[in-house]
């Protein structure tokens, strides 16, 4: 009954056809003002980038072809990041990755003045204090790398295989809370993805919900 076309509806249709071509551009303002970033696609080449680390060194994704690369977006003041560093969860995963010969890049995309933004010296101190073991801490205060990867939360994790293909993006595990007690018993998606890679299997769960604080991008060039 509700789907029956009434005369008025037919009228509107006629009116619509007459004017559609004319005003279609007016009617479709939406897509053109979308922010100019999009999530990188699984099973396609991970977007290339070059970043500067807290020691002043330069890292290009292309340099690490042939090795597994893990990207970790982080913000030491975010309670969700604190959950994984406070419990030692993140450091343990970093060490496992290092032992396997993988490259672990922690990325800080917080803009100056916003939560989690650090100068190089502070970044190194944080690594030492927390006994963390990343290969390098990339400082991305412009947010360029973050936007390139559509990093939304801290933590937000990405795994890139030796061929440079993105094979995982999402949360670190399946317990989207800030409760420290939830680390135990959680399924760590990154560990699973690395295990799949090591075993030569396709990553079983390539996309999950990232959870945590929002990445504190500056508003300048978004």
């Amino acid at each position, binding site marked *: *009954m*509700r*789907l029956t*076309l*009434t*005369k*008025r*509806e037919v*009228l*509107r*249709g*006629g*009116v*619509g*056809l*007459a*004017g*559609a*071509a*004319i*005003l*279609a*551009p*007016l*009617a*479709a*303002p*939406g*897509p*053109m*003002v*979308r*922010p100019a*970033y999009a*999530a990188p696609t699984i099973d396609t080449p991970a977007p290339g980038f070059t970043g500067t680390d807290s020691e002043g060194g330069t890292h290009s994704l292309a340099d690490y072809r042939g090795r597994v690369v893990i990207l970790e977006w982080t913000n030491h003041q*975010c*309670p*969700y990041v604190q959950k994984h560093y*406070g419990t030692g969860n993140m450091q343990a995963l970093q060490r496992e990755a290092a032992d396997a010969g993988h490259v672990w890049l922690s990325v800080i995309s917080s803009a100056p003045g*916003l*939560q989690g933004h650090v100068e190089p010296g502070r970044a190194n101190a944080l690594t030492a204090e927390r006994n963390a073991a990343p290969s390098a801490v990339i400082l991305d205060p412009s947010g360029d790398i973050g936007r390139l990867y559509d990093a*939304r*939360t801290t933590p937000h994790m990405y795994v890139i295989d030796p061929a440079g293909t993105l094979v995982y993006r999402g949360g670190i595990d399946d317990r*989207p809370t*800030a*409760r*420290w*007690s939830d680390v135990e018993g959680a399924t760590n998606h990154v560990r699973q993805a690395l295990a799949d890679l090591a075993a030569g299997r396709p990553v079983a769960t390539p*996309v999950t*919900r*990232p*959870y*945590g*604080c*929002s*990445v*504190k*991008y500056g*508003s300048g060039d*978004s």
Partner: protein
Amino acid sequence: MRQISVKGFGWRVSVKGFANLPKDLRRAAIALIPLWLLVVCLPVAAGATDARVATENVTATLVSETRAVRPGATVMVGLHQDIRAGWHTYWKNPGDSGEATDIDWQLPEGVTVGPIQWPAPHRIPYDPLVNYGYEGEVLLASAVQVPADWPVGEPVRLQAEATWLVCADVCIPEQGSFSLEIPTVADPPLADPVWAPAFAAARAALPVDLPWPADAAVGPETVRLMVAAGDWRQTRPADVHFFPDSWGVIDHAGDQQVTQSDAGLALAMPVGSAPPVERLTGVLVVAEELDGGTVRRAFAVDAPIADAAAGGGVAPGAGPGVAGLTGMEGEVAGAAGGPGLVLALGLALIGGILLNLMPCVFPVLSMKAMGLVRHAQAGRGVILRDAGAYTAGVLAAFAAVAGALLAVKAGGAQIGWGFQLQSPVVVLLLAYLLFAVGLSLSGMLTVGNRLSGLGSGLASRSGPSGAFFTGVLATVVATPCTAPFMGAAVGFALTQHWAVALLVFQALGLGLALPYVALGLWPGLLRRLPRPGPWMDRLKQALAFPMYLSAAWLLWVLGRQTGVDGLAAALVGLVLIGFAVWLWRIAGETDRLWSRVSTALAALALVGALGVMAPLSQARSPSDAGDSGRAAAGAQETAWEPYSPARLAALRDEGRPVFVNMTAAWCITCLVNEQVALSSPAVLDAMEQAGIVYLKGDWTNRDPEITALLESFGRSGVPLYVFYPAGTGGDSTPRVLPQILTESVVRDALGLG
């Protein structure tokens, strides 16, 4: 660091810095809370206690809707969060980041609790992300069921551990332990005067089942949701937004493009990151500007996802034709912020240029183009001057339209441009105008000074004033053609600062004027125009036919609005105009006496043509009545009578109870209220048994009798629901119902029990 103080019937713990405590200490503190509670609550045996945890950012309180509960019944219990300004907590799907509030209950044996009934969320942007949650305050309620064998007098003691994340630009996880004792009684308990209103508000914000069928399709880029709300003729700006139940189904931060067609509403949303789902579930929120503020309605959506091969196309069963209609005219501005200013101006400019091709505008422009041909030898200065005057005319007219819209907006009424076409009188006058212009083009009527007031005469004058009025005329004539499709621009403009709105309209106008200006700036183009000659007359005569067609189209519109009687009256009016034109010619060709007689008769005929409009102003659309009746009454076709002041007065004199519903096809709140609350057989039966007469007025065409009633209640728009209880005079004071109805609201207000 931590303060505890007993306050009234509750207790207060400030947990500033709580989250920063070492884990073990925090756990210990939490474990101690029930002990404190016991100590504090024991003396307060008189009634239910509430438990409150106040942090810097959230004051959270565990509350119940009634002061007591009857064994075997349910009681609504909820966590009320009073959130610091600028901060927010999260919905069940928090969006791009964040975390939903979680309540972990510890209940006495036999007592059960339902899931959180989440009020509709709000979109909380944090560039470039978007979160879903709540600002200000929110009540997360659940139904608690007390077993029938629970001993009366023994209070039900509820305990809950709640965690929530509260964020501004930074996020703070917070938690609290709550306890609530609800006395049990044998009789139906009284509402808690403090918290019942909060529960009522939360209930009003709960999604109701979508009263229309919905379909979804997922393509590689786009998720489409189609809602068959074809009976909603939306003419005013409204905010439509879909919130998916789970993460990643759509790109939360992406713009949602809303279009409306005969098939209903269609939302196009960029696809999210999560793996495909089988059904699209979530909440569709429609915010509509009504008399008295914004009304937000939330609908629970559970739509099957059509074959993915459809590739984000049209839902099956939507029918042919719909493919062309969906997505072409967006009468609802993009809910996610709308176009940016530069983009809006650019689009308005393009839209304006394209307006030149509209059937209503093109002939007028052509007339002026012919004028240009004539002036081709006149030199660049003249042409430029005319082009400038034409542009000024268009811009002035658009400024006037924008100014009027803004004035009305400032006056408090949010209107859509489409209202012009909703008046049959306006439609008929435009049909007359176009018919007369057609006759003029056909050579039946020499439009000189006589009809100069009708615009086309002004427009065909030479010199800058002629060009100026051509510009004005082009705009005026464009309005009826564009009205139904201008929603996006108007919607955008009306929601913006007045200066922005004015700019958008000026850009539209500039676009309309641009081809003419181009001719002025590059006379080379002009030279490419053909040389004057007899073809011009033929062209002029040919241009009459689009005019007649436009008139025919307008008559069709009129016929839809007023039925065959109105259409017949309009046709007689056209004949009278033709008659008057003929007499006019005679007047010009004969001697003085006949000339006077003819002129007098012509004037009489014109008066007659205008006279046929009189009944139209009150005419009601038969199809509208049919639509509304079908929508509301369903099987109960005789459930209501059409409203008339006489009928209402008669019923009131008899002392009969009357329920009046003032609605309109373009008011979605009205339609939803009818479907959700007023068309249920139970309500209609109860009304019938109570002897309540249900009168319904359809304001789709702005019936003045309904306007009068609205005004008598201080309203300037629909919906309006009034209940006149039984009795006469002072015994029966009319009671106005809220703008959002539920079955229980109607039952309570009408005393249906």
